[in-house]
């Protein structure tokens, strides 16, 4: 038997019966399907919905937490960088306020100012003064820029126009990244000049570098063309062009989802630094940031899968068990109905037979006496001369009456035993009584019947009627299985102190091994088309159990079948 067959419940292959009284009340497969669907549905639908909602809520919460975190980081860093640049510009403003244009054009004075400023970290590298026509009128610092004409330069035009200017990054001759800031300041005569300073932005680099970023995070500054202004960890060196897209201008810090060239999702926070060409960027790998969530998500999915499996298994198990119980109960109900019907029918037949036998007995007795009288007259009275032929005729009448008497007595005996329950029983008698009805059939079909009940089989207390039915059923079955010229053997043996066994064997068609388990099941029949109800053996089995015995079968296809009944000599409590 394969595994699916083993797991398949009994009711699965149930064929609906169509016997009037035991008409199926249930469609077991439908009940099973419905129960499984409903039970599993009621349990699984809320579970799944809850899990999906939980999944989404948690995912959204974690994503927004990451975004917020990035946003705060961008804001803070943006503040730091802006502050740094603002501070430098303020320094220029202070110089312009504290110092007159003439003083600024004094190299010694300018040099002193620069020297003072250099004492502070992240200070100015050089300082220059440019008049309104674009000529550098004073300069202190490492470059030779005295008298350079900036009037054509773009930055000069910008500072003249807008008042402030911040340059892109450049590498000076010491190969240190610098930027230039410049401011326009008015003079009392209405003209203006420009203060220009070069800044060492190492401090910004350090500040960005020091940021604690998770998820392969990277913080750097680019200009509006996407050229890196500060070194980055993963997106190139200073003055390289970044491979990411340049964020669209926004006055506020923003966090967006992006992808790197490899397609890996990124979370990019950016902010435009006002009055400069700089954009602060904080780039983090989304997958890295989401790792804790992925772990929770995996756990959630596992929990869901295991829960669904457990729910389904339990549902299937419980529903199958219950439906099977209903099925078994229903089968038992149908069987007991049949059993009752069968016993009732048998009892009415018995009563009918007894009535007929009784009615016939009286005329039979009269025939008997009249014929006996004729015989007596021939025998005792001289006046009726002895006529051998007449005596022969009378004898044959008397012997026929005797035969009729035997039949009616047997019928009466049989019917009478059906009412009585427990009494001392002689097994041999019961078997002969049963065979009495079937002798003729056996004779017609040339079936040899042999009965072997040895003397050591004692009388025992049992239900005679049930025993009769058992043997009647078994012998009938044997007859049905045999062709003409078969052989029926009934043997009784003392099994042990407390039990005897009776074997009914035939030389009939036999039972296939596959059917062994099912022959005692109600409604199993190979003769359904010939009017078999499939109840004979199940009723027999039930009767044997009712009188405390056991029934077993040995059979070989084509050779014959033996039914072995084991009966207790001492009656146990009757099983219901």
């Amino acid at each position, binding site marked *: 038997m394969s595994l699916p067959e083993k797991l398949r419940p009994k009711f699965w292959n149930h064929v609906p019966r169509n016997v009037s009284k035991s008409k199926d009340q249930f469609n077991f497969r439908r009940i099973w399907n419905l129960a499984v669907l409903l039970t599993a549905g009621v349990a699984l639908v809320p579970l799944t919905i809850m899990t999906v909602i939980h999944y989404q809520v948690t995912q959204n919460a974690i994503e927004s937490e990451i975004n917020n975190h990035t946003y705060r980081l961008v804001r803070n860093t943006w503040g730091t960088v802006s502050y740094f640049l603002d501070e430098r510009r303020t320094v220029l403003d202070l110089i312009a306020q504290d110092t007159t244009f003439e003083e600024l054009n004094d190299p010694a004075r300018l040099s002193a100012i620069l020297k003072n400023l250099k004492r502070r970290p992240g200070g100015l590298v050089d300082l220059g003064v440019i008049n309104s026509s674009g000529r550098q009128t004073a300069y202190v610092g490492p470059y030779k820029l005295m008298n350079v004409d900036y009037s054509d330069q773009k930055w000069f035009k910008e500072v003249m126009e807008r008042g402030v200017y911040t340059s892109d990054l450049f590498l000076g001759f010491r190969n240190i990244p610098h930027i230039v800031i410049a401011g326009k300041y008015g003079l009392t005569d209405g003209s203006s000049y420009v203060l220009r300073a070069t800044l060492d932005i190492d401090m910004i680099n350090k500040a960005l570098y020091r940021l604690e970023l998770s998820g392969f995070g990277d913080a750097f500054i680019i200009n509006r063309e996407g050229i890196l202004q500060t070194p980055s960890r993963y997106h190139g060196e200073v003055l390289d062009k970044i491979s990411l897209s340049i964020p669209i201008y926004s006055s506020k810090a923003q966090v967006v989802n992006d992808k790197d060239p490899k397609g890996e999702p990124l979370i990019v926070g950016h902010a435009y630094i006002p009055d400069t060409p700089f954009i602060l960027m904080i780039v983090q790998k989304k997958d890295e940031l989401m790792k804790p969530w992925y772990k929770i998500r995996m756990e959630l999915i596992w929990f869901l899968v295991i829960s669904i499996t457990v729910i389904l298994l339990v549902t299937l198990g419980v529903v199958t068990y219950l439906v099977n119980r209903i099925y078994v109960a229903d089968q038992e109900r149908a069987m007991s109905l049949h059993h009752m019907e069968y016993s009732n029918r048998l009892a009415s037949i018995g009563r009918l037979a007894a009535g007929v036998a009784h009615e016939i007995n009286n005329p039979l007795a009269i025939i008997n*006496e009249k014929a*006996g009288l004729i015989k007596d007259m021939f025998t005792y009275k001289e006046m009726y001369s002895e006529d051998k032929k007449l005596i022969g005729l009378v004898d044959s009448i008397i012997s026929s009456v005797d035969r009729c008497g035997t039949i009616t007595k047997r019928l009466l005996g049989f019917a009478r035993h059906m009412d009585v329950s427990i009494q001392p029983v002689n097994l041999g008698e019961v078997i002969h009584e049963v065979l009495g009805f079937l002798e003729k059939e056996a004779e017609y079909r040339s079936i040899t019947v042999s009965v072997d009940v040895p003397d050591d089989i004692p009388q025992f207390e049992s239900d005679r009627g049930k025993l009769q039915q058992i043997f009647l059923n078994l012998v009938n079955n044997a007859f049905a299985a045999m062709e003409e010229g078969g052989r029926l053997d009934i043997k009784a043996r003392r099994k042990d102190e407390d039990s005897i066994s009776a074997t009914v064997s035939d030389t009939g068609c036999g039972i296939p091994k596959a059917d062994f388990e099912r022959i005692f099941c109600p409604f199993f029949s190979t003769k359904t088309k010939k009017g078999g109800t499939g109840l004979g053996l199940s009723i027999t089995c039930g009767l044997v159990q009712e009188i405390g015995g056991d029934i077993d079968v040995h059979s070989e296809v084509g050779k014959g079948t033996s039914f072995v009944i084991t009966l207790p000599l001492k009656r146990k409590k009757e099983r219901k």
Partner: protein
Amino acid sequence: MRILLVDDERELVSTLAERLSFRGIDADWVTSGEDALKKVEAETYDLAVLDVKMPRISGIKLKDMLKAKYPDMKFIFMTGHGSEEDFRAGSASAYYLVKPIGIEALVSKINEALALDT
């Protein structure tokens, strides 16, 4: 010895009486319990053969009535209905035969029952 046969089947009981007389047994017959009760007033019987099932007074009842009057009387029952209850009721102090009965069986039962007496 005198024997009374009681059975509602006249044909049966009369023939039976005649057959017994061939065998040297003097038997009277009646066809009902009432007649039997009248009959025993007039004559003395050693033994009564009773049909169990008769209209009005059944054989069992009749036996009890007769037994009360004549404690020495013996009884043999005949029945067309071999029921266990009848058997138990009759078997206490009598014999029991199922119809159709063999005349030889009846004779031997009669002899047996009367022999017990002596």
